[in-house]
């Protein structure tokens, strides 16, 4: 069971090589296979994450949630997707057409690209880059642009306000997020995902870096634009923020991107703080999915617990509290590392 997916991948590779293809073509086809596998994983999960979120929120508010379509409402979100397929695609007359159209597609690009360095199991990273975690940071930093393009292209005051808020929020909260990851990188001594996983063989980094974990949790919630940091959308003030003018499949793509990002951010948290795909008895990929879902559960719990905060509080909290705290965390980690090294050199 442990090597199920690794064996499938190896068999596919062997099959393609056996067909007499040049190594370059085999690599290209394998990259395509990985991409399709990642897309399948993400899409399947997103459909049921929406269901999970609706059910969880319902239970937290003492309701039943979706329960009409299929047993316990299990087919609700599938039918919702079908419904969105059938909706008319409306582009406002005054919209900046190309920007408006492109934004809905571009929003998915960084979301999917982030999965290239996610370790789905032991030896199951699509590309084990030696700048792994930095790649994740770089790719997710470009996510802002699609939201701003959507906000601008719609030519709608709420959309533009939402886009501006997205930029202010995502650019600000990127800083503590990256700095909190730095603590983990300092302990592991490497940016490579597999090295960071190996460094957590004995003790998870959530134990050694509790402050960094909390900072990451808060900052990533803001990066995901989820409650209590959902000011860019803020239904009561901005209708739906940057997505106000979108309909049908284009709207669905934004929705999809939000949940895809949530899986990616949870996966990175599971890898960097919760030991990655390691654990007793069960196969590593199953452990990984369990840990990712624990993280997703925390994000959903956040969403239905805290009320939305105000824009100026949001930015003040980031710049006056989170950033100094994360800088202090880096400093303390550095001093701690030196003390640890010094202790090891002493012969008792």
């Amino acid at each position: 069971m442990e090597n199920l997916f690794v064996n499938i991948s190896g068999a596919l590779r062997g099959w393609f090589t056996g067909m007499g293809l040049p190594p370059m073509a085999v690599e290209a086809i394998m990259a395509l296979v990985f991409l399709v596998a990642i897309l399948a994983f993400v899409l399947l999960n997103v459909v049921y994450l929406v269901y999970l979120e609706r059910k969880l929120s319902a239970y937290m508010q003492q309701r039943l949630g979706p329960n009409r379509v299929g047993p316990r409402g299990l087919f609700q979100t599938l039918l919702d997707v079908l419904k969105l397929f059938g909706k008319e695609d409306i582009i406002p007359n005054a919209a900046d057409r190309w920007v408006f159209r492109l934004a809905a597609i571009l929003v998915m690009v960084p979301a999917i690209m982030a999965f290239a360095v996610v370790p789905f199991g032991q030896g199951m990273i699509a590309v084990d880059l030696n700048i792994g975690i930095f790649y994740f940071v770089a790719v997710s930093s470009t996510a802002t642009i699609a939201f701003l393009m959507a906000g601008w292209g719609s030519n709608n005051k709420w959309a533009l306000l939402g886009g501006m808020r997205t930029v202010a929020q995502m650019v600000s909260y990127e800083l503590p997020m990256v700095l909190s990851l730095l603590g983990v990188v300092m302990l592991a001594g490497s940016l490579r995902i597999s090295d960071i996983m190996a460094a957590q063989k004995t003790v998870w980094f959530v134990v050694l870096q509790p402050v960094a974990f909390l900072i990451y949790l808060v900052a990533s919630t803001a990066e995901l634009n989820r409650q209590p940091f959902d000011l860019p959308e803020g239904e009561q003030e901005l209708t739906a923020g940057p997505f106000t003018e979108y309909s049908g499949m284009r709207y669905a793509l934004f929705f999809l991107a939000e949940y895809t990002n949530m899986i990616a951010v949870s996966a990175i948290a599971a890898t960097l703080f919760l030991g990655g795909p390691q654990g007793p008895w069960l196969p590593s990929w199953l452990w990984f999915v369990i840990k990712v879902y624990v993280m997703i559960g925390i994000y959903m719990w956040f969403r239905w617990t805290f009320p939305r905060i105000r824009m100026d509080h949001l930015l003040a909290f980031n710049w006056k509290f989170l950033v100094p705290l994360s800088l202090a965390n880096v400093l303390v980690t550095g001093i701690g590392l030196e003390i640890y090294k010094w202790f090891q050199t002493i012969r008792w």
Partner: protein
Amino acid sequence: MVSPLVFWIVAGITIIAALAVVNLTNLIHSALWLIVAFVGVAITYLILEAEFLAAVQIIVYAGAIAILIVFGVMLTRRGDIRESNLFNNYRLAGGLISLGLMATIVTMVVKTQWAIDVAAVPANSVGLLAQNLLGQFVIPFEIAAMLLLVALVGAIIIAKEVRD
């Protein structure tokens, strides 16, 4: 080893994007094309096996375009955004200066004897980069950081208009 064809395609796209940045009259479209140009440069770094530099290029330049657009929107005083990125009246002077600059760079590139190192790229280039930046070149590095900090503080003071 990547085939040179890839480089030429990427270079072509980068140059087309750069031309679009200059020639489009809509400020927002110009800024968006700038992203394409920056990503093209990042891919060029990737072809040169400089992964870290490529990631930095994306995070520092392409990622920051969003802020550029916000400033572009907020500081544009023209009523019509479609005519917000026009040419000024210095075409002759600007053209001459650009030509002179280009001539200088081209002569420098052609005249220099480029040392070609066939050694393999070290596996851990990030560590080496860090050791050099924070070791041998720590003072220039810190001075650059100070300069940026001064610029930041200066910008805030100018924006807030100190009143006595």
